[in-house]
């Protein structure tokens, strides 16, 4: 039995879902770079918004250029979720299906509640649906 099998998740769900996996949250080294890759330009306003939202999760030392390796695992998971919601808002992406793999269990109870509240707002405005992967199946959260 596999403890961790991202290939199987990608094969099964890769076509229909945006997959956010705890062990592969980012492809670059900072929020500024992630935004640059996703928006194809610097976006100071988006960076500031994400940093501002991060404060709500007690991430007080967040900066656009701060290396991801200097955040804790849970903080990185939160930042990745905030980045996704920021891009959805900016690009007005509707009906996205977001699949979280080992992400919510990396986040403390309080922060999880705050994050789910944000996702609820995304569902109401943008029709985003949220799923979680556990072992070998997924279930819809929102």
């Amino acid at each position, binding site marked *: 039995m596999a403890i961790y099998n991202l290939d199987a998740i990608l094969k099964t769900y890769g076509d229909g879902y945006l997959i956010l996996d*705890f062990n592969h949250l980012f492809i670059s080294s900072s929020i500024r770079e992630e935004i640059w890759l996703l928006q194809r330009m610097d976006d100071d306003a988006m960076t500031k918004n994400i940093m501002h939202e991060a404060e709500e999760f*007690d991430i007080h030392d967040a900066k656009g250029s701060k290396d991801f390796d200097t*955040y*804790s*695992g*849970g903080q990185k998971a939160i930042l990745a979720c905030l980045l996704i919601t920021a891009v959805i808002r900016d690009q007005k992406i509707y009906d996205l299906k977001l699949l979280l793999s080992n992400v919510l269990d990396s986040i403390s*109870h309080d922060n999880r509640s705050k994050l789910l509240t944000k996702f609820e707002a995304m569902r109401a405005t943008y029709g985003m649906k949220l799923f979680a992967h556990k072992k070998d199946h997924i279930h819809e959260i929102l």
Partner: protein
Amino acid sequence: MQIKKGKYRLEDRGLNFTVCNDLDFENRGNCFYFRGGNGFGKTSFLEKIIIPRLKNDNIHYIYIGQDIRIQLYTLRALLSIQGINVPNNDEIELLRLWLNNSKSATVFIMDEFDKYFPDYGFIFDWSDSFIRTYIIVTHLSYSRPDAVAEKYRICNVRFELINFDGRFKHVRVKQG
């Protein structure tokens, strides 16, 4: 091995811990659950304070870190080098083999392993004959304590943010 109550500063991580009680990792039969908000230093406390002390005291330990992906590759290579026949796809068996070949360890550290396996009682079944102390970082409120409680005393350790002064996070570490 004990972490005495007092102040511990990790300059490079911007963390300043106040440990409120002596944490005794020596007594046989304790299972510590580390809980607290994200970024309050649970993993840093493990890696920069507890593990160096274990090494210094020559106490053998097993550590399953948060990012299990790299660790599984490493484990496979490690066991292969030791001449142990490693199964291709069965990672649970890989883990069992590792534990079976790590019986000199007396401390077992798991950092959020429960997010991969919420029901990880098999870990205790495989290791409680030689492990004296478990240290488990978790965000789950329920961590199968009944599986451990038969042999191990549950010790909850909370990491609480007191304040952030612009450079350091001041964190209270409190047992009980």
